[in-house]
């Protein structure tokens, strides 16, 4: 919110920047190519939304109620499991809570600042990366591994401690190259469908894609319980589903590509409240 992305400029009907024009197939004798070009022109003519909305804004009222109702939202089981892991002392290592005492206060708001650049290594870390770093470097324990039930529980718990607080990531300074890389990823056409994230998640927000309503691609509910999965999953799992959807390369969990994209998405979602644990379709 209030964070301009140049991506939205070319959604305002000014046409593609010169560098991108060549990628658009010109209408020729071939009917299909003509249709595709027409569709692309339609994409460009749609004005972009003025502000970024949470993913839950695109859910049915019933699903929004379910998300907010602790008696109905299964993702709270993962939060509870995370809380238990956080306070449990592993053999031969300190419990998380022995450093992060009173996490409800000490870690309140922590997740709103992620992804962030780690001062020591200069690397971009998301909440998963920070937890894994704590675990291997400070607790001297084997890494949980991305998308393991334990990591999902820990990230759901830590993010839930920031529930209701606005996303507040740094996109300048040391984070700038990562942010720019994420932005470039968002704007780049990819995959067999030759679509960029931007074409749908700026240009066609609120419209239907099969049974779904296209959102702004804000990750503020993740880790989230997705009906499609019958399970809680990370934002990177969701991004992998996006990549597959446009028949593009699926990057690894925690890959530099998705980390940069996560930062860019968080930058776009600045000011939106954290909703973890969310419910999504």
């Amino acid at each position, binding site marked *: 919110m209030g964070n301009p992305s140049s991506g939205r400029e070319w959604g305002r009907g000014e046409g593609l920047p010169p560098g991108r024009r060549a990628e658009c197939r010109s209408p020729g004798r071939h009917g299909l190519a003509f249709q595709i070009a027409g569709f692309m022109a339609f994409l460009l003519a749609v004005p972009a939304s003025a502000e970024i909305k949470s993913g839950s804004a695109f859910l049915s009222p019933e699903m929004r109620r379910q998300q907010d109702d*602790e*008696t*109905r939202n*299964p993702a*709270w*089981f993962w939060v*509870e*499991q995370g809380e238990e892991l956080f306070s449990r002392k592993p053999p031969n290592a300190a419990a998380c809570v022995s450093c992060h005492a009173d996490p409800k206060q000490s870690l309140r708001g922590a997740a709103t600042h992620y992804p962030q650049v780690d001062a020591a290594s200069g690397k971009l870390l998301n909440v998963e990366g920070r937890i894994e770093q704590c675990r291997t470097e400070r607790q001297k324990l084997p890494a949980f591994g991305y998308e393991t*039930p334990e990591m999902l529980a820990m990230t759901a718990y830590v993010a839930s401690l920031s529930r209701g607080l606005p996303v507040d990531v740094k996109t300048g300074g040391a984070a700038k190259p990562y942010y720019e890389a994420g932005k470039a990823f968002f704007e780049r056409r990819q995959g067999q469908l030759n679509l960029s994230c931007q074409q749908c998640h700026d240009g066609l927000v609120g419209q239907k894609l099969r049974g779904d309503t296209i959102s702004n691609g804000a990750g503020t509910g993740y880790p989230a*319980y997705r009906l499609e999965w*019958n*399970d809680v999953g990370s934002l990177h799992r969701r991004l992998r589903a996006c990549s597959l959807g446009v028949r593009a390369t699926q990057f690894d969990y925690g890959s530099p590509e998705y980390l940069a994209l996560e930062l860019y998405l968080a930058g776009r979602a600045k000011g939106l409240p954290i909703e973890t644990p969310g419910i999504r379709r």
Partner: protein
Amino acid sequence: MPFNARITMPAEARAGDIIEIRVLARHPMDRGGQSDGKGGIVPRKILNRLTATYAGEQVFRLDMNTGISANPFVSFTTRAVETGDIVFEWREDGGATYTRTSRLVVT
């Protein structure tokens, strides 16, 4: 995935009141039938029954088949009769059972 349950009901009720009990369980409710990648078939593993016992007798039973969702939600009612525990028991394919207890104070 560890089994877990979230039981939501009033802690107190007046004798004769009808209370709503909401039960959310953490369970994948594997409907089975998929290939296990080794030439076999993944067996069905669901919670096939939920019972609630209160004041000496079973007051509710739900028989479940694969048409019940993963992490199922169940709601039912009972009339407050006396102070005591309401015991919830889930039965899983294969015979495992899980129990939880909630106390109801009746005034």
